[in-house]
């Protein structure tokens, strides 16, 4: 079986801080994050010949190659949706493994916090697409217009089916915030919360409280992937891609796959997970830590189920009071804080934390962190990575 296992390594990472208004353009943030990642790896812009972006990002290949002096790229492309961070790494890795490029950069830069987030570009989705029409026309006339509402709808049914009680999602956000409180780069550094804070947090779209949902920030992140041969000459020991996968199935819609038999299952995450573990040749019990999509708390137990860390309907039990998912627990989750506890940059920081864990440079280092999993895009087209040494 051909595969990209062990053929591509992550060799550089760059992550900005999380700000409510950084007073920089998205292009500048992207350039700075890419420069940080290049410096981290020990490379220059002239070494880059591949680039993968998130479709909705305003900073595009032209702007970045012009601003940073990259003479020519031979492999570049885009991925959309929340699964993008892992999907982008996978797309770049196929390019490297196929010999279409040698060293590729993956980035995102978003002015989410300052509200300066520009409209998506004309060439991507400036106008509603035919398919977007299909998606929104059947929801927005009834007031279902936000991601929060869309996920709340899934969560309500999930609670009904598996007899989950009010506030049982709380320990997830509390754990993420406690992890983030120890991470100096986090927006919530030294700002942990307790279950009491959670219970007092206001309801936004029942059953979701404000603390069940991520906050928006201005932030940027970048990673660099290359071949293991080139990685030998760079600054850090390479973090190998053992598995990379994407998944999408019929009736997947962004955060609202309502038109299938069971809406609580994240089936695209399940098919992605199956492929991911198969490629890496490992089982869920071999995974030492997981960085999961925690844009909304209910997505975490749903992912644990879909990825096979526990049985269907047992995800909330698994999270329990947070013991198992804390650093030092059976499966430490979102050790830098994730979207809820570090800051939201659409899962890019999840990949960066996984790289830190494998390198052994994390602020909350998991012992013997030889192999870890990243999942992005819960409740939509999914992406996943298994990284190791």
């Amino acid at each position: 079986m051909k595969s990209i296992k062990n053929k591509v390594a992550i060799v550089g990472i760059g992550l900005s801080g999380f700000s409510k208004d950084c007073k920089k353009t998205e292009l500048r943030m992207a350039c700075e994050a890419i420069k940080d990642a290049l410096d981290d790896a020990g490379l220059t812009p002239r070494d880059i010949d591949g680039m993968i972006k998130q479709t909705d990002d305003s900073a595009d290949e032209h702007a970045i190659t012009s601003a940073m002096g990259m003479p020519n790229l031979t492999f570049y492309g885009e991925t959309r949706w929340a699964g993008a961070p892992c999907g982008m790494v996978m797309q770049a890795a196929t390019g490297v493994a196929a010999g279409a490029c040698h060293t590729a950069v993956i980035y995102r830069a978003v002015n989410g916090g300052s509200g300066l987030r520009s409209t998506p570009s004309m060439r991507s989705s400036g106008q509603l697409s035919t398919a977007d029409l299909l998606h929104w026309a059947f929801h927005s006339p009834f007031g279902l217009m936000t991601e929060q509402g869309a996920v709340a709808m899934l969560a309500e049914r999930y609670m009904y089916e598996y007899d989950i009680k009010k506030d049982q999602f709380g320990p997830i956000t509390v754990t993420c915030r406690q992890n983030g409180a120890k991470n100096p780069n986090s927006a919530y550094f030294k700002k942990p919360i307790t279950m009491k804070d959670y219970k007092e947090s206001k309801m936004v779209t029942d059953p979701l409280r404000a603390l069940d949902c991520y906050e928006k920030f201005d932030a940027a992140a970048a990673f660099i992937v290359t071949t293991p041969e080139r990685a030998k000459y760079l600054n850090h020991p390479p973090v190998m891609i053992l598995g990379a996968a994407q998944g999408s199935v019929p009736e997947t819609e962004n955060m609202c796959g309502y038109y299938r038999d069971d809406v609580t299952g994240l089936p695209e995450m399940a098919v992605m997970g199956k492929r991911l573990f198969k490629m890496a040749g490992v089982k869920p019990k071999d995974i030492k830590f997981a960085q999961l999509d925690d844009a909304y708390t209910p997505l975490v137990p749903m992912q644990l189920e879909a990825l096979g860390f526990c049985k269907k309907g047992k995800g909330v039990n698994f999270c329990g009071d947070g013991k198992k998912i804390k650093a030092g627990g059976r499966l430490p989750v979102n050790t830098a804080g994730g979207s809820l506890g570090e800051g939201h940059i659409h899962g890019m920081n999840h990949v960066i934390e996984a790289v830190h864990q494998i390198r052994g440079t994390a602020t909350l280092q998991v012992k013997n962190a030889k192999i870890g999993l990243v999942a992005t895009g819960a409740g939509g087209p999914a992406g996943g990575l298994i990284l190791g040494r």
Partner: protein
Amino acid sequence: MFDQYLSRRYQKFGRPDPSAYLIKDKTAIAGIGATEFSKNSGRSELQMACEAIIDAVEDAGLKMEQIDGLVKFAMDYTDEMHLVSALGIKDLAFFAECGWGGGACCSTISHAAAAVATGMAKYVVCYRAMNERSGRRYGRVPGVETVMAAPNDHYGYIMPYGLAVPPSWVALFGTRYMHDYNVTAEQLGWVSVVLREHACMNPEAMFYGVPATLEDYMASKMIVEPLRLYDCCVDSDGACAIIVTTTERAKDLKQTPAVIMGAVQGIAEQGEMMTSLYRPKISLLPEVWYAGQELWRVSGVTPKDVDVAQFYDAFSPLIPMQMEEYGFVEEGEGALFCEGGERIRIGGELPCNTSGGHLSEAYIHGMNLINEAVRQVRGTSTGQVDDVEISLVTGGLGVPTSAILLRR
């Protein structure tokens, strides 16, 4: 900064070795599909995409259940998750997007080929569906709200001066190109006339049955100096789909595989969406030269070996400009090569755009050019060139570009 390009030194150092290039000979196009091309399709772009994909799946002799990858144009208004639902694709293992309008056509093939070559997917569909004629036409001025958005901030430097439509962006290059190399309007006219001849052989073409002479060309309406109406592509509604798989699998399918020798992309410094006006020289297309160098490097052949070419032809000056950058002729000699039309006709030295191209068949962002290149390899084109061994397609110009080289 631009010295590497201007001195035409291709930096091979640091590039992956051609032996590591898994796409060559190991991947192939196994199926092609399309809808009709029209001025008004009367249906949604999603339906058009579905129809073209169903057509391609049938052409290859596959079942829809076997499709496990989709590569779309970032610009395409149908997205992969709705196609998956509409077509009942069971488990999509690979999905990606390629940006930059027509520059994406061969990019989609490059990403699909990388995916099948590395085992990430088995059968990947690349598609484009556009109601470009009946819907939003690119030839028109974008709305104020588009100009005011950050990704289009380069518009801010051109739009207030009325430099507002794609033909005018190309016109600035065209003026300089004609000035630098003493190119005449008649020379460009021959490109348009020959492509129309080819369209008249192709019943699917929008200009089938509408021949045009050089006199017609010269008499056609001036759009933006120096571009005439006949220099511009035909706005159209339509969809195309292409299936990429491994050559091994393709051999067991219904059609003769069009084996991929190279599928490359190119994006050069100081580029801008169709207005790369700040480069040291604008009568050249550096990304095309880079793509060409990479294409010849990975495929191991030279321009001399190419039997038939489908050049991206949104506007006629782009064909001679590309011939120069891909190395078919010397710098500044492209237009001379096209003069009289003999060399670019079917039967000529380098038959070009044998289905009529964007100027005369339809404008489906380069995907109809790929379909034609595959037909040339299969030997089923209406403008069939004799004994085609190697067939070239190029992607959009003035934007990050792409190219593929196919063989029998």
